[in-house]
């Protein structure tokens, strides 16, 4: 873990019912800053890299659309899990991403979304 002190920030998302994996990722480089996971979690580096790739592609899309909008979050539903990515700062230039993976059969998506949103809202604009 590159920045263990960042792990403390992930405590609220680790409390989400069905939580599998949470990590903070440097969007610009794809580097994992900190992570927490349950025993059955997917490989953290791969999941983090996927989150960074997703945001890069969406940023490229947003850049080409040039509508002046900013990315708020990404919610993906797999057959067995939710994959949620949110920039921790509402900015045109997301620097740090929060990735949360959760068990689809145990997680209330709306509640999880709210937890993630509240956590990110705690970060300074």
């Amino acid at each position, binding site marked *: 873990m*590159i920045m263990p002190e960042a792990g403390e920030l992930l405590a609220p998302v680790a409390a989400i019912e069905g939580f599998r994996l949470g990590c903070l990722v440097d969007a610009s*480089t794809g*580097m994992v800053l900190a992570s927490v996971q349950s025993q059955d979690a997917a*490989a*953290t580096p791969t999941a983090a890299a996927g989150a960074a790739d997703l945001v*890069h592609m969406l*940023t490229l899309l947003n850049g080409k659309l*040039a509508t002046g909008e900013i990315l708020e979050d990404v919610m993906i539903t797999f057959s067995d899990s939710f994959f949620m990515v949110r920039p921790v700062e509402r900015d045109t230039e997301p620097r*740090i991403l929060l990735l949360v993976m959760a068990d689809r059969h145990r997680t209330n998506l709306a509640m999880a979304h709210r937890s993630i949103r509240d*956590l990110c809202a705690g970060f300074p604009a």
Partner: protein
Amino acid sequence: MSQISRRARVRQLADSVWPGRTVNGYANLIAARLRKLADEGSTGMLPVSGHGDGAVFFRDGQVVYAESSRTSPPVARARDLAALGLVPGEAPGSAGADGTDAAGTVATRSVSRLGGMLELTELIIDALTELLSSESRYAKFRHAEVIPAGQGRPLAVETLLAEVQRRHEVLRQLAPVVTPDTTVTCESSLGLPSAQVSPAQWALLIRADDGTTPRGLAMQLGRSVFGTTIEVYWLVELGLLAVPGRPPALAGDQAAVMSFIRAVPGGKGSDA
């Protein structure tokens, strides 16, 4: 009769003698040295030379600082952090005894420190990525060498080596389009598309004149060379920067698109 350089000849000989450790494997030798220093719990400085000079500083077997003449110096960023009271080594929320009461308070303080520490850590890892390039070699370790004031949070050698390996793989993916030393120019054609860029990308665009390289831009802005190379790559993809001499047919070639997933070493694993 074929004419080969002395360097190529040395490379061939090394390849034949050490199948698993080619001349390009100097980085492997440095990595082995770093692991040994970590195992010994060393404190001091390992000078590294090659394309550019630099050094890796250890404290109790962990890397606390690294700098290279070919990347932005972390020390200036560290001084900025110190001036703001974001001194490395403090735990999140330790600035005040009451800082842990509300989650929001902790998060606010932590991310301020987190963002600052991320910038410092990024520059240290950036220097290490450069120092562990194929042409680098190390000199004698100097025990108890004074550690610069801009030292960062102690980082485990294995974690750093894994990150450096990942970065080298990303740079290999980017190489067909742009490297840290590729000259890029501002795309000034009349058919320029409208596009939305971030402040960081805008800072690059307004400085991208003839003869600019990602490394030059990074040094100018005090940013990571690795991160800037990726930003430049995306600006090329957006059609806002161009690589002189790059065939236009490649401009829309999505087969070579950069992917962090493909740069993850191995497969299933964890860095936790």
